[in-house]
């Protein structure tokens, strides 16, 4: 999901997990009762608290894309005011957590980082605390008790936002990895019935599996008869990778295609033999040029230089 | 219509093997599994179901969608009350077979799945539990 305000999966908590989180932050029935008393201090001044948050972000230039994208900013302000209302609502179950997560996801999309968020949230807390103190101008202890109670809830909020931002970040990294993987295993059609698969970089088992799936689908979709797999760009071939190559070759053969492997370095070949990997099923040719000549021979074609006798 | 959470397929005839792997495919899809993993699962189910017919004559396959830490998996339990396997370790070795098959079935099924567990003793039947996780 790149757009829309769906709840990110990281925040789809069960009731038991929500309960656990409340326990971790020590939110007791007594706290809830005190928070309920703060209704006027929070809700009546919600515009002011919200402004404290966003004005700070704007002032210190930590707002990411938020102030360049009015639609995000409007939505963020709206959700923040909503937050102020639900903060003293007394109901901190799943709906409350999901609301927090939605705002966290929006901050993630606006590329606000943890530093920016925390500094602004700290301003928001300050703004709330000032109004709470006004409720008990003479009784410092009572004011402090109420601040302690609502602070527990606010820190619980931070913990959720943090989870969401980390999850968004992880998802972004995963997407990028995916994109790199896709990029790095292209299947090229050199001519009718002939595919080339240059493999570059590290072959981990996940990528190896994906490479095999891509190759086998390409064989079917492009009706390939011969595939030249060039592994010059693969730094290390251990026995696991070698076995995977052997499996890929066997699977291609079951589909009716032949695989020629080129660019297997001498020392790699040596070490595979030492490891006892059986390479007899692999059709290997020294370099890519030799591999292509072999492929054309298999396809019944012959490359000839025009003009020479 | 939402997929049921668990399905039981009785294995008594060779047509039941086909039914078990078709149900397996459906349940795996419900668990969020896709692509080539569906074929791997169907093949693994085929092998354990075949094992039931070959050695115990009858038994059952239980399919269910399970989840752990927010991830889903298809769980396949193949259970029979047949003669059981005296030496499980030996039976799980590639190429070992006491029956008519090539002895690829169980070790092969293990390679196709993410988790594989077998409990058996001579005279006490066999229970195989395998899982494949959604990626």
């Amino acid at each position: 999901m790149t757009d829309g305000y769906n709840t990110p999966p990281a925040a789809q908590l069960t009731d038991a997990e929500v309960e656990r989180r409340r326990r971790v932050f020590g939110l007791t029935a007594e706290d809830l009762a005190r928070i309920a008393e703060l209704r006027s201090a929070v809700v009546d001044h919600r515009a002011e608290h919200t402004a404290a948050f966003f004005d700070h972000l704007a002032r210190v230039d930590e707002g990411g894309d938020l102030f360049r994208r009015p639609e995000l900013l409007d939505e963020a302000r709206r959700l923040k005011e909503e937050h102020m209302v639900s903060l003293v609502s007394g109901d901190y179950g799943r709906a409350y957590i999901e609301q927090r997560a939605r705002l966290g996801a929006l901050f993630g999309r606006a590329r606000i980082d943890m530093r920016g968020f925390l500094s602004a949230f700290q301003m928001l807390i300050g703004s709330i605390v000032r109004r709470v103190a006004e409720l008990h101008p003479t009784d410092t202890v009572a004011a402090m008790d109420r601040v302690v109670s609502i602070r527990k809830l606010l820190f619980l909020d931070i913990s959720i936002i943090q989870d969401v931002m980390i999850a968004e970040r992880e998802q972004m990294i995963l997407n990028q990895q995916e994109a790199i993987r896709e990029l790095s295993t292209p299947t090229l059609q050199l001519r009718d019935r002939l595919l080339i698969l240059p493999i570059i970089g590290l072959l981990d088992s996940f990528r190896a599996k994906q490479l095999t799936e891509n190759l086998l689908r390409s064989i079917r979709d492009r009706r390939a008869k011969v595939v030249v797999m060039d592994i010059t760009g693969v730094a290390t071939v251990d026995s696991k990778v070698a076995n995977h190559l052997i499996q890929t070759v066997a699977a291609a053969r079951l589909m009716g295609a032949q695989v020629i492997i080129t660019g297997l370095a001498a020392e790699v070949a040596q070490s595979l033999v030492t490891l006892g990997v059986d390479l007899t099923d692999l059709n290997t040719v020294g370099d890519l040029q030799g591999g292509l000549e072999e492929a054309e021979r298999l396809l019944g074609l012959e490359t000839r230089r025009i003009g020479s006798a | 219509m939402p997929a049921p959470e668990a399905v039981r397929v009785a294995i008594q005839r060779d047509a039941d093997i086909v039914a078990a792997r078709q149900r397996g495919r459906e349940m795996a899809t419900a668990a969020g599994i896709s692509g080539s993993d569906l074929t791997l699962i169907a093949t693994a189910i085929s092998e354990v179901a075949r094992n039931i017919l070959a050695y115990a004559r009858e038994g059952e396959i239980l399919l269910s969608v399970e989840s752990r830490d927010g991830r889903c998996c298809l769980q396949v339990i193949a259970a029979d009350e047949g003669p059981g396997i005296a030496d499980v370790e030996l039976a799980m070795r590639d190429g070992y077979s006491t029956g008519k098959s090539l002895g690829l079935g169980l070790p092969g099924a293990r390679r196709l799945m993410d988790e594989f567990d077998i409990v058996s003793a001579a005279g006490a039947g066999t229970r195989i539990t395998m899982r494949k996780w959604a990626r």
Partner: protein
Amino acid sequence: MAVPILKQGPVLIATVQDALTDRDLIQLRDDIAARVGILRSTGVVIDVTLLDVLDSFACRTLRGIAETARLRGARTVVAGIQPDVAMSMVQLGLTLGATATALDLEEALEALMGVGEGGIGAYAGS
């Protein structure tokens, strides 16, 4: 469900339409063995494009068909094994031995009839 077997010139074509039970597979093996003899066929194509699973039994039976046909003078080509099926066969450790394979029916016929360059890539294990 029985597998229909068509005769096209010297070649028999068996197209698997649906998931096969063990009984269906054995029936197919016996049918092909009988027809190769009666029709004096020189080639057999088993088209498995629609098969979504080829397990150890199916694989062994296909090899059995190819071997029986060979002893009776016909070459067998298994056509249309799908990518996912090929991958799971390999992971199971299954092979078709010396049985030829082809991408699809057209390729298989080409390989058997010797049209074009005839059957390159078709012979596994050679």
